[in-house]
C-alpha cells in the first residue's frame, strides 16, 4: 500500500465510499483494460480488479484516498494478477490465453512490474485510450451474439455486477452468468483478438459497438417490460459509454452523432410520463422541464457534425430529435424540414421502422390521409406487422380522420403486442376514447 501513503490524511468512511464509487464509475474500464494486458485472461483480470476496489474500500479509510486513485487501483490489480499467475499457474483455467497482438511478451509476468510502474504515471484514462478501445471492441465483436455483446459490455467495460445486469434484462442471475461465461469462453477458444480493428474493418466494427450502446440506451429508455418506462441504470451506462467513445474516437462523426442522439433523447426523460407514470405524448410534454443544457450541447455537436461531412445514421437521427426539441411548442415544429431529414435518413438507413417514423411528421406536414397511405403500405409489406408502434401510429391517424372503429381495432392490435405497463395503460385509454 505504498502508493496510498502519498495520499491525503485519514478520511471518513462516507468520503472514501464516494471516492471508490467515483473511481469505479470513471476508471473501471481503464483499470481492467490495463490489467488484461498482464493477465491475458478476462476472468482473472476481472477478479483482480474487483479485489483492488475491495482493497481500496478497506485501505483508504486509514491511509487516505490516494492522489491518483486509478494508478493505485491499477498497480494493486496488476500486483494481484502477477501473484495469481505465479502461485496458481496450475489451478488456473486451461483455456488458451487471450490473444494480445503488437509484440506482447510471451511471458506475461515478466514485464508486469515495469508495466505497472508505467501505468502508475499520469492519469490512466488519458494515457491509455487504446486499452479501453480494445476492451470495447472485443466485447462488441460480431462473432458474439448481440445479447452476449450487451452483457459483456456492461460487465467488462462498465463494471456492472452480474446481478444488476440480470435484473436489467429480466433474466435470472445464473442465466446471465452463464451467458457471460459462454461469451468469454468463445473469445478465448476461437481466439478473438484483443485489439483495435485495422482501418479496413474499423467502420463495420465500430458500427457494431455503437449498435450495442444504442440498444442499451433504448432498452433503458423504454424498458421492454415491467412497471416503469425508464430503467435509469441502463440509460446511465449507455450515456457513459457514448461519452467514453466520444473521448476515445473524437474524429468519428458516427460516435459524435450517437452521443448527441442520446443527449437529446435523454433530455426529455423527466417529462415522458406524468406523476402517476402515465405515458405522455410529445405534444403533451412540458417543454420547460427539458434539460436545456443537454439540448444545447447536443445541438452544438450536431451542427459541428453536419459541417464536418456527410451525415450518417446517428447524426441524422440526432438532428431530427434535436429539431423536434428546438420548437417552442409542438405545433410550431418545423414539420417539412423533419420530413426532409427523414428522407435523408432513409437513404443511409433504408429501414421500415424509419419509414414508419417518417409518417408522424408527414401527417403534420401533409395531413393524416397522406401519412395513413404510407403506413398502410408498410402494413401491407408485412415486415412490421408484429411491431406495436405501427399499429399505434395507424390507430392515431385513423382516429384523426374520424374512422373511430378502425382506430379502436388498431389500438387493440398494438395493445396485444405491448409488454411495458406504462405503454399498455396509454393504449387502453385510447381504446376507451
Amino acid at each position, binding site marked *: 500500500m505504498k502508493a496510498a501513503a502519498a495520499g491525503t490524511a485519514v478520511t471518513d468512511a462516507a468520503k472514501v465510499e464516494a471516492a471508490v464509487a467515483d473511481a469505479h464509475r470513471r476508471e473501471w474500464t481503464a483499470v481492467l483494460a490495463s490489467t488484461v494486458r498482464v493477465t491475458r485472461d478476462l476472468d482473472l483480470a476481472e477478479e483482480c480488479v474487483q479485489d483492488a476496489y475491495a482493497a481500496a474500500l478497506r485501505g483508504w479509510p486509514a491511509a487516505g484516498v490516494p492522489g491518483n486513485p486509478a494508478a493505485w487501483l491499477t498497480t494493486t490489480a496488476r500486483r494481484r494478477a502477477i501473484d495469481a499467475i505465479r502461485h496458481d499457474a496450475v489451478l488456473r483455467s486451461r483455456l488458451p490465453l487471450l*490473444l494480445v497482438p503488437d509484440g506482447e511478451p510471451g511471458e506475461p509476468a515478466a514485464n508486469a512490474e515495469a508495466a505497472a510502474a508505467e501505468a502508475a504515471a499520469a492519469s490512466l484514462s488519458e494515457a491509455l485510450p487504446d486499452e479501453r478501445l480494445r476492451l470495447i471492441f472485443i466485447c462488441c465483436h460480431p*462473432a458474439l451474439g448481440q445479447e452476449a455483446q450487451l452483457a459483456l459490455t456492461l460487465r467488462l467495460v462498465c463494471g456492472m455486477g452480474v446481478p444488476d445486469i440480470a435484473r436489467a434484462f429480466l433474466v435470472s442471475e445464473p442465466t446471465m452468468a452463464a451467458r457471460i461465461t459462454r461469451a468469454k469462453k468463445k473469445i478465448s477458444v476461437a481466439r*478473438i*483478438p484483443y485489439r483495435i480493428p485495422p482501418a479496413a474493418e474499423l467502420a463495420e466494427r465500430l458500427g457494431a459497438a455503437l449498435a450495442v450502446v444504442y440498444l442499451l440506451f433504448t432498452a433503458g429508455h423504454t424498458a421492454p417490460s415491467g412497471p416503469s418506462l425508464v430503467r435509469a441504470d441502463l440509460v446511465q451506462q449507455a450515456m457513459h459509454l457514448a461519452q467514453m467513445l466520444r473521448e476515445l474516437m473524437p474524429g468519428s462523426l458516427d460516435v459524435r452523432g450517437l452521443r448527441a442522439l442520446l443527449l437529446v433523447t435523454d433530455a426529455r426523460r423527466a417529462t415522458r410520463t406524468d406523476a402517476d407514470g402515465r405515458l405522455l405524448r410529445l405534444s403533451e410534454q412540458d417543454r420547460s422541464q427539458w434539460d436545456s443544457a443537454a439540448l444545447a450541447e447536443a445541438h452544438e455537436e450536431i451542427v459541428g457534425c453536419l459541417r464536418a461531412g456527410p451525415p450518417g445514421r446517428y447524426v441524422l437521427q440526432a438532428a431530427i430529435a434535436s429539431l423536434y426539441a428546438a420548437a417552442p411548442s409542438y405545433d410550431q415544429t418545423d414539420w417539412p424540414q423533419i420530413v426532409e431529414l427523414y428522407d435523408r435518413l432513409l437513404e443511409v438507413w433504408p429501414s421500415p421502422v424509419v419509414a414508419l417514423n417518417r409518417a408522424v411528421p408527414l401527417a403534420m406536414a401533409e395531413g393524416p390521409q397522406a401519412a395513413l397511405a404510407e403506413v398502410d403500405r408498410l402494413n401491407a409489406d408485412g415486415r412490421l406487422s408484429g411491431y406495436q408502434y405501427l399499429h399505434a401510429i395507424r390507430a392515431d391517424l385513423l382516429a384523426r380522420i374520424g374512422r373511430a372503429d378502425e382506430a379502436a381495432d388498431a389500438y387493440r392490435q398494438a395493445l396485444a403486442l405491448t409488454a411495458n405497463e406504462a405503454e399498455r395503460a396509454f393504449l387502453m385509454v385510447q381504446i376507451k376514447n
Partner: protein
Amino acid sequence: MAQYAILIYAHDSAHAPDATAEELETCDEHSDELAANGSMLAAYALTPRDMATSVRADAITDGPFLDSKEVVAGFYVIEAPDLDAALAIARTNPVVRDGGGVEVRPVHSSYLNPAAS
C-alpha cells in the same frame, strides 16, 4: 497459430461425379489460391446432396441430415493467427458471393491416418 475448419454451405455442391473442369473452375481457383499462400492444411469437396445418406437410430434415409435450403458442400481446414484472420480468409470463398455462406469453427483436435492421402 490456430486451426479453423471452414464449412461451405451452398444450395448444392458443384462437385457432381460428372462435373466438368469448367463447372469446378471457381472452386478450384480458390482452393489453389489458399494452397499457394500456405494457409490451407486440408480440403474436402463433397458430392451433391443426392448422393447423401443419413443414419439415425431408427432409420436410414436418403438425403442430407438436415432438411434445409443449404447443404454442407465441402469443408477445409486453415491455419490463422486469430479469428479475425480466419474470418478474412473465409470471406474470400466464392460461395459467399453466390447465395451461400461459410461457417468457421475452431478445431479442437484432428487425426489423419498417415496411410490416407
